[in-house]
């Protein structure tokens, strides 16, 4: 059986060979430590076009990702405190959550982040899921025939992630004009669309990232208010049994969600 390093060597060689004439890529192939090889692998996957891939590549990639993903502490619903009926907060990496579905904050291309090693959630989810995720997204987008609108949702397999599904939504982008009523409506629409598609597919639990905050500039506090209000209104109106995790990464978001859901200490 190959060890992780041997797998990475195979995968990086395969991915470099797909672009034999790209000098910028080939200048990086001197990666020697395991971490450097992981970074090279990640970057190569990030820029990879949604082209077919061999069975052998997938087998070795899946073996690598399974072991890499399991090295981290995997968190499931039973490890979390139910802060309000059906509602949970989790601070940490969304790709370490073993829930039915995790929400990806995508862009309208819906193919995953194309910037090598960019630290956005879209990049991290696609990296840990495997190259199959972009291939499935590409099939969905080709069938749709146009870009993905803001405030809607698509669902895919989660491949090598501990979750079963990834729900992809494009949140509103806030420019220098700031938050407008339309942008607030669209952020709520992103949450509703994810919940609806989760229920349509019979998911038991779904973990939301903080949609539109960060790169998309939505103010954290207002975004959290809309997130919680929309989820609670949906659960009340539909009597859905979905269990909903608000997944935060930054301390500021953890504080905000705690204050909204549990109250100030």
């Amino acid at each position, binding site marked *: 059986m190959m060890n992780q390093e041997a797998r990475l060597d195979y995968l990086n060689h395969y991915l470099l060979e797909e672009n034999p004439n790209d000098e910028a890529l080939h200048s990086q192939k001197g990666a020697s430590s395991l971490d450097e090889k992981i970074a090279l692998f990640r970057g190569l996957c990030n820029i990879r076009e949604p082209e077919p891939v061999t069975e052998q590549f997938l087998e070795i990639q899946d073996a690598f990702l399974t072991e890499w993903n399991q090295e981290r502490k995997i968190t499931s619903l039973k490890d979390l405190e139910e802060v309000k009926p059906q509602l949970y907060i989790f601070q940490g990496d969304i790709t370490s959550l073993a829930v039915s579905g995790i929400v990806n904050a995508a862009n*309208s291309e819906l193919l995953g982040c194309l910037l090598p090693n960019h630290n956005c959630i879209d990049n991290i989810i696609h990296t840990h899921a495997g190259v199959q995720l972009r291939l499935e997204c590409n099939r969905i987008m080709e069938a749709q025939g*146009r*870009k*993905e*609108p*803001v405030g809607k949702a698509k669902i895919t397999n989660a491949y090598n992630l501990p979750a079963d599904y990834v729900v992809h939504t494009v949140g*509103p982008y806030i420019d220098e004009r700031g938050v*407008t009523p*339309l942008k607030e409506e669209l952020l709520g629409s992103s949450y509703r669309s994810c919940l609806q598609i989760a229920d349509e597919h019979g998911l038991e639990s779904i973990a939301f990232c903080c949609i539109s905050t960060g790169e998309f500039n939505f103010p954290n506090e207002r975004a959290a208010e809309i997130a919680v209000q929309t989820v609670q209104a949906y659960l009340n109106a539909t009597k859905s049994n979905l269990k909903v995790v608000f997944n935060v990464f930054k301390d500021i978001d953890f504080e905000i969600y705690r204050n909204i859901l549990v109250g100030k200490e």
Partner: protein
Amino acid sequence: MKKRGNFLFIEKQDDVYTISLTPELQDDIGTVGFVEFSTGDTIQAEEPILNLEASKTVLEINTPLTGKVVERNEAAVKEPSLLNSAKPEENWIVKLTDVDEAAFNKLEEA
């Protein structure tokens, strides 16, 4: 009579209801570069009437009212930036008939 819903204007003239973009919506989406009308003669409230790609966003526009589509602004397919116009005769999306007048009356005043 003119009302608003879903960030759109709905103008009633006799039995024809014309749906167009509000200036706020135009500001939020930026220059429109691509539009695709949904097909089908009758549409239910909150169903899509138009998908657009603009400089600031990609958006599905949903009708605030149920009705029968009698005309689409086909000129906007060839020239999507017509939807950025301030002129009502250029920035409209669809014209509906068979609209429930009570539902129209319930919409917010424009």
